[in-house]
């Protein structure tokens, strides 16, 4: 299994632990990731509100680069995944913007996009039959006893025609993975709620309420921690919990896979979290104290 | 008093109470065994003479069971029945029989549970009242 790899900006900064863990577990599971050379920002949460064109053209450049590599693209960031898929869709279905952007990019970089590529979220890669069969053999530290609230957010589920890797309303792919790792997942109804990640800086009041509701719902569901597959969600949920309140760690699913695979370097990832997950991991004997 | 096994007659409309008794049967609902059903084409057929005869013969309780109001298979037979029962309650009261020994119930053909409940409640009521004041002999003479 070999893929072109698009980490995206967040994974190079605020979500570096997502990047580290994604790369590490792929290596362990025999999945080769080749980073797309000279990739650019997909425009994320801002491009579309300035220009519908920009929101397609920016990710399109990455698609062209990846297509040159001849490898399907793997994206861990939900926002990047979302926009890469949108750009792919616009070109493949031949919308006005898609056509125009593809043509102009052809002029700018000397190649255009033919649509011969699949853009996959890292969860899709992890849930392939092959990987699922391999996992039990590789797991050394099953997450037994840990109760997780799996959180999907918006960008990897909506709009369903473009991105759905799962049932858009009652997704369970992260749950399935968490269960494969030996954890149990809780029944809760905020899986697909929006955390307001796109304006976390500008409207912190609104975002505080959204994240507070989500974290409280997870707690009410009996979860020990939240697990996500999106850097915006993770950052938002991780950083917006009030210091004085009871806090709940927010994991990337790749981090937990790493833990279950017994990777000792995972401690480094967790040090980057704002809500310290180490006590929890130690409580379940998944990481040694220290 | 505990050995008192009342004799109770229930005039049951074919379309509701009789059907409900069947449902109670197929659901195996267990209820008081003292009630004897008499199937009627409609509760509207209920005949004052027959009811009075039942008391005269020694029935400890009698009830009529028809369809829910507004639901009568024959449009309004059950309303007529209700009026007759109300009238007869006064008549038997004058004869010295407690009017509670006569009652009218409404239920639908699917209400097996309600059928059983009525049978239980009415039997309980009659047990509390004890045997009918008419033991033997005739208080009422009919010429029909």
């Amino acid at each position: 299994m070999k893929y072109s790899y698009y980490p995206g900006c967040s994974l190079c900064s605020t979500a570096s632990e997502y990047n580290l863990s994604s790369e590490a577990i792929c290596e362990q599971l025999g999945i080769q990731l080749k980073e797309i050379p000279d990739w650019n920002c997909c425009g994320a949460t801002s491009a579309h509100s300035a220009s519908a064109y920009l929101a397609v053209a920016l990710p399109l450049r990455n698609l062209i680069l990846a297509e040159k590599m001849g490898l399907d693209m793997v994206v861990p960031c939900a926002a990047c995944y979302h926009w890469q898929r949108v750009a792919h869709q616009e070109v493949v279905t031949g919308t006005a913007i898609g056509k125009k952007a593809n043509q102009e990019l052809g002029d700018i970089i000397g190649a255009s996009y033919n649509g011969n590529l699949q853009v996959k979220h890292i969860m899709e890669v992890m849930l392939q039959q092959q990987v699922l069969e391999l996992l039990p053999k590789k797991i050394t530290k099953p997450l037994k006893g840990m109760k997780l609230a799996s959180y999907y957010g918006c960008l990897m589920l909506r709009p369903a025609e473009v991105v759905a890797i799962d049932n858009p309303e009652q997704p369970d792919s992260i749950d399935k993975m968490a269960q494969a790792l030996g954890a149990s997942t809780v029944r809760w109804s905020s899986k697909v709620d929006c955390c307001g990640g796109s304006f976390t800086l500008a409207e912190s009041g609104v975002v505080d309420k959204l994240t507070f509701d989500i974290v409280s719902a997870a707690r009410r569901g009996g979860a020990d921690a939240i697990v996500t597959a999106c850097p915006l969600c993770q950052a938002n949920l991780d950083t917006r919990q009030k210091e004085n309140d009871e806090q709940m760690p927010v994991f990337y699913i790749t981090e937990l896979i790493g833990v279950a695979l017994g990777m000792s370097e995972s401690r480094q990832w967790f040090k980057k979290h704002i809500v310290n997950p180490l006590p929890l991991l130690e409580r379940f004997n998944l990481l040694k104290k220290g | 008093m505990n050995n008192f096994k009342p004799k109770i007659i229930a005039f049951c409309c074919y379309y509701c109470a009789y059907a409900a008794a069947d449902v109670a049967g197929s659901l195996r609902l267990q209820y008081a065994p003292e009630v004897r059903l008499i199937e009627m084409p409609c509760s509207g057929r209920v005949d004052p003479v027959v009811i009075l005869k039942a008391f005269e013969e020694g029935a400890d309780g009698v009830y009529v069971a028809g369809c829910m109001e507004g639901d009568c298979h024959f449009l309004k037979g059950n309303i007529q029945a209700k009026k007759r029962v109300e009238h007869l309650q006064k008549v038997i009261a004058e004869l010295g029989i407690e009017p509670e020994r006569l009652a009218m119930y409404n239920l639908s053909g699917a209400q097996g549970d309600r059928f059983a409940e009525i049978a239980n409640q009415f039997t309980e009521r009659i047990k509390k009242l004890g045997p009918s004041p008419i033991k033997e002999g005739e208080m009422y003479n009919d010429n029909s």
Partner: protein
Amino acid sequence: MSTEHLSTVIYQDTDQQVNRCYGCMKCSGGCPISFAADIKIHEIIRLVNLNQLDKLLQCKTIWLCAFCKTCKQRCPNDIDSSLVMDWLKSKALRDDVAIAMPNIPILYQSFLQSVEKLGRVHEAGWISSYKIKTKTYSNDLKLGLKMIRKGKLKLLPGRIKNYQQIRKIFSCARKEL
């Protein structure tokens, strides 16, 4: 200004057939920012159908929209309100109207400036640029420092090799507007 009905223009630009709207209010019931919206989502759609551009450009809701597409996911008429919001946002910027929540476009602009310049976004850079523009330095200050300590925010920007290509993409985009 074109005399064309707002709903027609929006249909042409965004492919969203807003006149299909039932007024069923599902969008408003499901929208995460409804509680903070001055005009509810279904009212936005309704006002488009009533050709009430001024009211729309001045409201907060269009800036609050988180682009989560919950509305679109549930709308029985398949209307993607987020695209309507986007359209109204750019219209508001183009028409230079007084914006109800000025910080939000600044946030987007700061972000995009960073992308235009570097090809990728430099978090520390664009955030501080945003904070300077909006004079909101003190907000989340502690958090920012913590992130830097944890190596999550790098202070020095990096730039992609073919950054000129990105600038060209941006200039194509400007032509679009």
